[in-house]
């Protein structure tokens, strides 16, 4: 019964989404206020309906309703409750429902927070959101319906993929989707602006919070996924340049560029056409990502190949939405007249360079991801494009970005003084070089990667700090400290986010350059040395979990005779899914992670054991979280709240900066 209610709500949501698309856009064209006013209520009703459907599906998973095909394929009565929830989006149909739910939630949020939007713009934004929603609801109902019943329900289900039964991965998709789908707001604002034929500072200010929110979610989602790969896959890698990862990186790079170019639109009324184009491309890359993951065309050998016919539908939607928006862009971009005048050396130019590097980086990822497919189809030449390629072809652009970041962020708007800015950065450069030198002298292996990463990371972090300090003016130290606390949150957000990037750059190179690794056969009771630690395999036991069996090792790590930590790496086997998983045991630390993995028993007795010391691993996730937190600080800046609050009071005095 509840399932049927959910199913019905979903069908109704499609009807409402169609209304939300057609009436407001018609009204906006004709200037009919009543038709435009339909958009808001329709968006909220659509959200309520999709939420009802999602609730019904969640209910079916939690109560293990095995008359539902989806539940049978992805759940099991013995599965822990949290993974019964996570099972809802651990599959194609359910994750699509979550996607549509997020989309509807963003539209509803636009209604609630967007009360100061001009009526016509708001109607158009919501209409575009409605169109995207209608397309995906129809796609779901006609090709991937999550509410299909089985005539004869089995006694129990097939269980969720064991790799997904993990806290990191359970919450990784929801964040990622909020990010992907959040970019639809930027897209809708861009299309609405093109329909209006007008992009101004106010538009820049309206679109920025949405992009920022999407970017924050995307950042968190990607780092959760990376963290999961780090601890779950068993050798502590954190980024593999796989098509599925690239699918999330491309929108992130575009969204990052968009965040920065929207600032130029907001403050200087320039880069308008480019910003619109970026907003379209960012969502386009989200859709391409959806296509890559769900169609299975890119990596034909992998085990998750989705039905290609569904992929074709997504490709069709991609062409309709992005192609349509680009055609609109081609027709209207000429009308978007730039106003700001600025010199070659200015903050504007620095942001142009930032955008250039970020979009070229996104382009490299894009070409690297799809080229194997193109090469096979067009040239009949099967090639791989993997990690070594991306390390060589992508990294230089990011290094260049990190090098110009501290300089660009202190240049003045309109007309900067490069010599003066660089003078102010000498101390930062010296500190950065000192860190690089320190890393060089302390490292045992003489690769350049570590020292360069340390210098670059320090350059970005201390550059961000010096940027913030420079904002406090020229008064005495105490006056500047006082002013520091009164700086706008956007300034703090920028410092925090940029420092986070510095930490990520440093950690990524440190982890790669200075890892200590050992692969050994160890018998219970034996010890081996790992760096300055001593590791003893105390015992190996068989343990039973709720829906798996486990081979669990007990390992004692000590240093200079004193116990540091006792770790329990496991090898699990999930009988229902018939899959083994590795559960590495990790002792997290500020300076290093100890990372132990137990492998197979060996013929001559003993167990294969892999052990690692991963230096600065937590700085990577910490840095990513800092970036997200910086975004959050920026999002909470008074300017956006003033703009939102003013409308409620009736007046709309948007401060001119």
């Amino acid at each position, binding site marked *: 019964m509840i399932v049927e209610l959910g199913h019905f709500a979903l069908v109704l949501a499609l009807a409402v989404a169609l209304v939300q698309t057609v009436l407001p856009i018609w009204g906006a064209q004709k200037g009919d206020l009543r038709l435009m006013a339909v958009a808001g209520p329709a968006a909220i009703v659509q959200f309520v309906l999709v939420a009802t459907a999602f609730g019904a599906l969640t209910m079916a998973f939690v109560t293990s309703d095995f008359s539902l095909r989806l539940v049978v394929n992805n759940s099991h009565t013995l599965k822990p409750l949290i993974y019964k929830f996570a099972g809802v989006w651990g*599959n*194609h149909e359910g994750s699509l429902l979550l996607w549509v739910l997020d989309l509807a939630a963003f539209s509803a949020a636009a209604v609630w927070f967007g009360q100061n939007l001009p009526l016509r713009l708001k109607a158009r934004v919501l209409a575009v959101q409605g169109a995207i929603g209608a397309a995906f609801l129809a796609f779901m109902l006609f090709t991937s319906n999550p509410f299909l019943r089985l005539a004869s329900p089995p006694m129990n289900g*097939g269980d969720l993929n*064991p*790799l*997904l039964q993990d806290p990191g991965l359970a919450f*990784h998709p929801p964040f*990622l989707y909020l990010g*992907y789908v959040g970019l639809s707001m930027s897209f809708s604002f861009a299309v609405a602006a093109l329909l209006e034929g007008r992009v101004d500072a106010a538009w820049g200010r309206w679109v920025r919070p949405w992009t920022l929110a999407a970017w924050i979610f995307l950042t968190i989602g990607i780092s*959760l996924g*990376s963290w*999961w790969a780090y601890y779950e*896959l*068993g*050798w502590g*890698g954190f980024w*593999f340049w*796989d*098509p*599925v990862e690239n699918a999330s990186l491309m929108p992130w790079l575009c969204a990052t560029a968009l965040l920065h170019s929207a600032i130029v639109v907001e403050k200087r009324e*320039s880069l308008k056409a480019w910003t619109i184009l970026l907003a379209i491309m960012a969502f386009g890359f989200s859709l391409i990502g959806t296509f890559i*993951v769900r169609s299975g065309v890119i990596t034909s*050998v*992998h*085990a998750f190949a*989705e039905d290609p016919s569904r992929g074709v539908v997504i490709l069709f939607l991609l062409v309709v939405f992005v192609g349509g928006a680009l055609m609109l862009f081609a027709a209207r971009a000429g009308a978007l007249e*730039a106003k*700001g*005048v*600025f010199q*070659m050396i200015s903050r*504007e*130019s620095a942001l*142009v360079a930032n955008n250039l590097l970020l*979009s*070229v980086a996104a*382009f*490299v990822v894009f070409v690297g991801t799809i080229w194997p497919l193109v090469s096979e189809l067009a040239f009949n*030449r099967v*090639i791989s*494009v*993997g*990690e*070594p*390629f991306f390390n060589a*072809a992508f990294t230089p*652009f990011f290094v260049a970005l990190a090098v110009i970041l501290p300089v660009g962020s202190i240049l003045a708007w309109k007309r900067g003084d490069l010599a003066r800015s660089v003078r102010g950065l000498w101390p930062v450069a010296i500190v950065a070089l000192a860190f690089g030198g320190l890393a060089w002298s302390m490292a045992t292996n003489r690769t350049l990667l570590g020292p360069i990463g340390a210098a670059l990371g320090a350059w970005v972090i201390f550059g961000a700090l010096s940027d913030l300090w420079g904002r406090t003016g020229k008064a005495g130290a105490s006056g500047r400290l006082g002013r520091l606390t009164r700086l706008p949150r956007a300034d703090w957000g920028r410092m925090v986010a940029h420092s986070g990037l510095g930490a990520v750059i440093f950690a990524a190179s440190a982890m790669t350059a200075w890892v200590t690794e050992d*692969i050994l056969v160890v018998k219970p009771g034996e010890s081996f040395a790992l760096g300055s630690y001593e590791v003893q395999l105390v015992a190996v036991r068989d343990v039973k979990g709720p829906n798996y069996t486990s081979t669990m090792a007990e390992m004692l790590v000590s240093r200079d005779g004193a116990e540091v930590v006792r770790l329990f790496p496991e*090898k699990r086997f999930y009988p229902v*899914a*018939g*899959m*083994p998983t*590795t559960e590495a045991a990790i002792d997290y630390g500020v300076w290093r992670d100890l990372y132990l*993995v*137990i*492998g*197979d028993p060996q013929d001559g007795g003993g167990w*294969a054991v*892999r052990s690692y010391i991963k230096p600065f691993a937590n700085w990577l996730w910490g840095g990513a979280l800092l970036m997200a937190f910086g975004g959050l600080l920026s999002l909470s800046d008074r300017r956006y709240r003033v703009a939102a609050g003013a409308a409620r009071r009736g007046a709309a005095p948007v401060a001119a900066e």
Partner: protein
Amino acid sequence: MKNPVNRRPTLRFLAPLALALTLLAPSLPAVQPDEILADPALEARAREISKGLRCLVCRNENIDDSDAALARDLRILLRDRITAGDTDEAAVAFIVDRYGEYVLLSPQTNGSALVVWLAGPAMLVLGGAIALQMLRRRARAPVPSALSAEEETELANMLRRDP
């Protein structure tokens, strides 16, 4: 992939956009203790080369990280070549000869594969030229009147209304 055969067909699509679902090689990764060469210098070379070779039956893994039986065969083959005195290039060429260029995770720099290598730099040059031209135009552009005539009238009206 550890056990591609074991995986139930109903669990095909478990990649809910999950990052890194690629590597779903869930068991003990890669290099086994019995494969490791006695000479650390040779072993280090083997590890380095392994990182650039694809495990052909896996989704996107190098043979150093993969668990698949084929990856193990390739690792042992590679070590045999190195022990036999092959240079790095010769060992890689030997494997490419037998398994095709698909085995190379970093595409070769010839023919159509050159496109991937040139895409970034070409885009940078192209985008840089466009950006430079735009910046020149902006620097030379006349400072526009802050408001259009229409907006000036509107502003004047508003100011008159305001006490």
